[in-house]
C-alpha cells in the first residue's frame, strides 16, 4: 500500500522525473508516426502494385513464349479449380518507344505488353489508371474524341494542371493533320521539287488481319469499321488512327517551371515502337502506333516503362502466329484468384504441375519482392534507431532515479526502520519506473495518434515554418501522406518503452533496496 502511495506521490511531486519521461513520450510518438506512415506507404504501394499485377503470373522463359495459350489456360483452370476468377494471356517484349519532339526523335526504353483488353481488365485494375473516363469504364484502344482528365483524378483541382490535355484525342490529331497539310502545301509552293508527301497515300498497315480493334471514330463521331482497305484508299490522318497504344504517363510527361505538367506526346500523336521479333536470331521490327491514352498507376517504375498494345497486333508483328495452325504464342498468362485464396499455395500447386525449366510461376509479391523487402528493411532500421532513442531516454530515467534515490535516502532509511523490507523499497522504485514509463508512453501514444491523424496539418505547419516543401504530392502522387495504424505495432511500441523504463529503474531500485538503514537515517 505504502509503495503505491509513495510512487504516486513521487510522480506528483518530482517534476524532474516527468521531464525525463518527455524523451520516452517523444520516442513513442515518433515510433508510432513513423511506423504508421511507413505501413501506410507499404500498404498503398502494395495496393498499387497489386492493382497492376495480377495475383499469379505464369511466365514462359524467353521472348518467344509458349504456344497455345488456350491449352495452358485449360490446364491451369483444371489445377486451380474453383479458386480461379479470371485469366488472360499477354505478350511481353522489351521495346524502344520513339516519338518526335520538334525536329528531334526521342527514344525511350519500354516494356511493351500485348494485352487482350477485355480479359486483361478482369485480372488487374489497370483500367482505373487510365486518363479518359470512358476508358476507365471500358478500356479500349480507340482514340477518344476528348474528355481526358485535366487534373489528377484522385488529387483533384489542386494538383498540377495538365497542359495540352484539353485538346487531347481526335481534336489534337485533326489539328496535327491540318498543320501537316498546310506545311505540305507550303512546301509544295516554295520548293515543288522537294514536296514528297510522306503520309499521303500510305497503305493501311494492318490490312492483313481483321481485328475488332481496327475501327476509328470519324470526325462526326460515327464509328467506322475499317475492314480491309484497298491500297488505293488514302490514309487520312484526320479521321484514321494507327493501332492504339496506351503509354505510361511518365513516358510523356515533363514538369513545367511552376510544377504544371506538359507533355511530349499527347493522345492523338503517332509514335513508333521498335522491338525484336520472335525468330532466331531476333530481328528488330518497327511499327507506327497512335497514343490513345495514358496509364498512370503512380508507381514510377511502371509509369515510366509500360506500353500496352493489342495482343493480336503484337503477335502478328513479332511473328508469333504459327502460319499452319493459326495458333499464337504468348509470353505469359495472368491469373486472378478469388478473394482470400492463399496465393502461395496455388502457386506451389501450379509449380508442381508445370516443369520449372519451361515455366516460371510467381505471385505478385514474388515479382515485387526486392522492393517490398527494401521497404521492410527500412522500417526495421528506423524502428531500431527510434528504440535507441527510447533507450537513451532510459539512461535519462536511470540518472534521475539515482538522484531521487539519493535525495530520498533518509526516507528509505525511515521506511526500513519501520520494518519495510528491501524488496518493498525496491518495488517502490520499480513501480515508479513503470508508472513513469506508462505515463510517458501513454502521452506518446496520444501524441503519436494525434500527429498521425492530423499528419497533413502537421506537414503544412512544418512547411510553413521551414519554407521548404516536406512532402511533394507530385513526387509521391499522394494527396495526403498515407497512414495505417496497426494496433499490434502500437502494443509492441508501448510494451518496449515500458520495459525500457522499468529496466532503467532496476539499478536505482537495487541501490535503494541495499541501503543500510542506519547509514540511510544518518544521511544528511
Amino acid at each position, binding site marked *: *500500500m*505504502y509503495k*503505491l*502511495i*509513495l510512487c504516486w*506521490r*513521487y510522480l506528483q*511531486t518530482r517534476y524532474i522525473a516527468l521531464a525525463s519521461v518527455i524523451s520516452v513520450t517523444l520516442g513513442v510518438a515518433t515510433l508510432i508516426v513513423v511506423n504508421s506512415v511507413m505501413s501506410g506507404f507499404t500498404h498503398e504501394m502494395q495496393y498499387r502494385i497489386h492493382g497492376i499485377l495480377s495475383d499469379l503470373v505464369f511466365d514462359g522463359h524467353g521472348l518467344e513464349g509458349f504456344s497455345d495459350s488456350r491449352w495452358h489456360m485449360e490446364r491451369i483452370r483444371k489445377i486451380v479449380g474453383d479458386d480461379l476468377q479470371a485469366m488472360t494471356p499477354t505478350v511481353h517484349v522489351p521495346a524502344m518507344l520513339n516519338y518526335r519532339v520538334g525536329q528531334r526523335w526521342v527514344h525511350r526504353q519500354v516494356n511493351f505488353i500485348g494485352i487482350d483488353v477485355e480479359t486483361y481488365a478482369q485480372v488487374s485494375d489497370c483500367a482505373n489508371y487510365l486518363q479518359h473516363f470512358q476508358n476507365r469504364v471500358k478500356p479500349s484502344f480507340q482514340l477518344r474524341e476528348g474528355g481526358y482528365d485535366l487534373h489528377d483524378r484522385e488529387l483533384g483541382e489542386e494538383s498540377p494542371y495538365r497542359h495540352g490535355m484539353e485538346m487531347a484525342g481526335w481534336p489534337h490529331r485533326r489539328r496535327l493533320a491540318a498543320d501537316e497539310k498546310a506545311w505540305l502545301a507550303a512546301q509544295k509552293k516554295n520548293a515543288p521539287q522537294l514536296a514528297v508527301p510522306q503520309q499521303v497515300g500510305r497503305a493501311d498497315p494492318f490490312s492483313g488481319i481483321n481485328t475488332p480493334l481496327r475501327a476509328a471514330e470519324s470526325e462526326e463521331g460515327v464509328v467506322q469499321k475499317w475492314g480491309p482497305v484497298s491500297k488505293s484508299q488514302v490514309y487520312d490522318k484526320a479521321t484514321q488512327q494507327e493501332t492504339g497504344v496506351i503509354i505510361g504517363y511518365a513516358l510523356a510527361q515533363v514538369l513545367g517551371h511552376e510544377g504544371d505538367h506538359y507533355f511530349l506526346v499527347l493522345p492523338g500523336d503517332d509514335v513508333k515502337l521498335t522491338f525484336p521479333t520472335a525468330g532466331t536470331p531476333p530481328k528488330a521490327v518497327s511499327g507506327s502506333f497512335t497514343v490513345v491514352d495514358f496509364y498512370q498507376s503512380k508507381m514510377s517504375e511502371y509509369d515510366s516503362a509500360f506500353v500496352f498494345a493489342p495482343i493480336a497486333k503484337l503477335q502478328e508483328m513479332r511473328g508469333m502466329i504459327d502460319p499452319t495452325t493459326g495458333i499464337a504464342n504468348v509470353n505469359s498468362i495472368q491469373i486472378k484468384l478469388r478473394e482470400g485464396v492463399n496465393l502461395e499455395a496455388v502457386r506451389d500447386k501450379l509449380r508442381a504441375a508445370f516443369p520449372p525449366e519451361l515455366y516460371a510461376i510467381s505471385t505478385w509479391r514474388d515479382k515485387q519482392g526486392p522492393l517490398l523487402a527494401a521497404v521492410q528493411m527500412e522500417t526495421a532500421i528506423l524502428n531500431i534507431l527510434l528504440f535507441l532513442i527510447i533507450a537513451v531516454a532510459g539512461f535519462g530515467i536511470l540518472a534521475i532515479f539515482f538522484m531521487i534515490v539519493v535525495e530520498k535516502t*533518509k*526516507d528509505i*532509511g*525511515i*521506511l*526500513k*526502520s*519501520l*520494518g*519495510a*523490507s*528491501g524488496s*518493498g523499497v525496491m518495488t517502490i522504485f520499480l513501480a515508479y519506473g513503470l508508472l513513469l514509463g506508462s505515463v510517458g508512453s501513454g502521452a506518446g501514444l496520444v501524441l503519436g495518434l494525434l500527429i498521425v491523424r492530423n499528419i497533413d496539418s502537421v506537414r503544412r505547419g512544418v512547411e510553413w515554418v521551414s519554407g521548404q516543401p516536406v512532402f511533394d504530392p507530385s513526387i509521391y502522387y499522394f494527396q495526403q501522406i498515407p497512414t495505417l495504424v496497426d494496433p499490434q505495432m502500437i502494443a509492441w511500441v508501448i510494451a518496449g518503452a515500458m520495459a525500457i523504463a522499468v529496466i532503467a529503474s532496476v539499478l536505482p531500485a537495487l541501490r535503494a533496496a541495499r541501503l*543500510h*538503514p*542506519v547509514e540511510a*537515517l544518518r544521511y544528511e
Partner: protein
Amino acid sequence: MSSGMSHSASDTTVRKTSSSNGRTVAESGVQISNIWKAGDNVSQESKVQIAARALHKKYHKGSNVIPVLRGVDIEIREGEFLAIVGQSGCGKSTLLHLLGTLDRPDEGEIYLADNRIDNLSAGARDRLRNETFGLIFQFYHLLPEFAALGNVLLPLMIRHGLFGYLRQRHAFRERAKDLLDKVQLGHRLKHKPCELSGGEMQRTAIARALVNRPKVLLADEPTGNLDRAAGQEIIGILRNLNTTENLTIVMVTHDENIAQQADRTVRLVEGRIE
C-alpha cells in the same frame, strides 16, 4: 506529565476498540497483566524483555577502525523505563540501533524474551522492527510525502499487504486517529510534517511508533531537538505510556534532567556500561 495522564482514559478506550476489532488481547496481554506493577518499582521478578551480552561494534572509516561498543551487557525488564546516557559519540545510539535490529553487532548476542534476535534473517528483523519495536528518533523522521495521519498509518501499511490493508482501512484509520488524539494532534490529521512544529512532529512519531502495539519503545534522543517545554511534554507522554500501559521504554539521551525521569539510568562511557 499531566497532559499525558489526562489521556489515560482514552488509552483504555483504544485498547477496547482494538480488541473488539478482532485483534486478540493476548497480543498485548503481558502489559495488561502487569499494568499495576509498572512505574518506579519494577520488581526484580518481572521477566527480562531484552538482554544483550558482550556487544561489540566497530565502524570502518576508510582504513581506520573505530570501536564504538566494547562489550556491552545490558538487561531490560518488562515494563521498565530505562534511560541510557553518555557523552556524544559514546555509542549509545549504536546500542539502541543494535537493540532495535537496525544493525547487527560484530560480536555478542541480543535476546528478546529469551529468543536470540541478532542473527535472524533480514525479513524476520524487518518484521520485528515493524511489530515488536517502536522507534522514535531525534529528528522525528517523518515522511514528507504523507500527512500526520498517513505517517501514523505507515507501519500498518507496511505490515499488511495491499488488500489486507484496504479491507481493514477503516479500523486502521480509527486507530491512527485515536493515537493522534492521544498525543493531542487530533486537529492536525491532514497536516504535512513541514506544517507541524518540532514537538508536534515528535508526537506524531510517537503515535506512529505505537500504532502496531509494540512491546518495546526505543527512543533515540527524543527531546534532543526540542525546547524544554516541548521536550518535557514528550517525556510526559512516554512516562504516561510506561505507567498506564506497562510499555517497556529504552530512551537514549545526553540530558541528565531528562534521564532522571526514567525508572533506571545506565551510563555508557567509551563503549562500555559504567
